[in-house]
């Protein structure tokens, strides 16, 4: 229960950071969430929201999807590291 509340609080904090364009705090919070919770797809959604709010390029250009790409990379890498260093989720 506490873990769910903590997760929701982190999600809200990430959203506030994204609205204010403080992507560095949002990324830090997302990494904390990714490390502490299982299947933390919020990091990918956060990247998507960042692209939607501030990205000016179209989908055909990778420059318009930096948030999404960074979110997916962090998600995959940290999930892999978690799998390596933890006995079980």
């Amino acid at each position, binding site marked *: 229960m506490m873990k769910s509340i903590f997760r929701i609080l982190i999600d809200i904090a990430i959203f506030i950071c994204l609205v*204010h364009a403080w992507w560095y705090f949002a990324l830090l919070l997302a990494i904390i969430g990714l490390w502490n919770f299982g299947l933390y797809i919020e990091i990918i959604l956060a990247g998507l929201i960042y692209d939607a709010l*501030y990205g000016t390029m179209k989908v055909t250009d990778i420059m318009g999807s930096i948030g999404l790409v960074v979110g997916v990379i962090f998600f995959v890498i940290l999930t892999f590291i978690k799998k390596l260093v933890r006995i079980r989720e």
Partner: protein
Amino acid sequence: MTYIQSRNSRGGNSFRYTTLSVFLIVVAVIGIRFLLPNFFSGFMTAIARPFWRTEFSIYSGQLMSAEALLNSKEDLMRRLDEANMRGATAFALAIENTELKSMLGRASSTPIILAAVLSKPPLAPYDSLVLDIGSENGIVAGSMVYGMGNVPLGKITDVLAHSSKVLLFSSPGQRFDVLVGKTHIQAIALGKGGGQYVVELPRDSKVMEGDTVAIPSLKSNLYGIVSSIVSDPSQPFEKVLFAVPLNIFELRWVYVEKP
């Protein structure tokens, strides 16, 4: 026989499912962005817009006390009077300039519209601004955006109903023609982000710090001011760094050209 329970298969499956779900999400997102390019942008901007408006109102002083507002107003009135005195000469010259262009059939009749800057990401990969005007105000993609003093800042790239996004000329990788210095040397400027640019010139170009940079057009708008020159005696070229003459991160208002 006794076997040690393998965790690998379970962990492997979990990892496979995770990877598959991420892949599906990414494919879905790309698909939606292909079919409905403004869907995510419009939806998220509609959610964020009230927060941006509230923040803009707070910074504009709407929550200040009446006394503080009156003091601020008096101070601003005094500054406005001073600015009017200084601007009278410039205004007369501008009128003369317009009249001369009109006589030569080159007068600009492009209307402009004032827009509030709702958001400007600091230290961001996207060197962009979000404005509070959109297609309902007659803005279209490609419209030029100017700062105070008619400094060209960027172009509108995405237009929503009540907001629009501006890609700044200083965005990393953006290239465009400029005229540098007193002798108007034509060169290609490269955006470095945050209102900063770099241009390469021959070492004997005699460009100095403080020289102006303009865009090659009839309007001859001031584009930037040379802030630094990096020269290496072993290289035939020198790097001239220049910046827009206003602080991008303190922008509150901009002008947008209407088509």
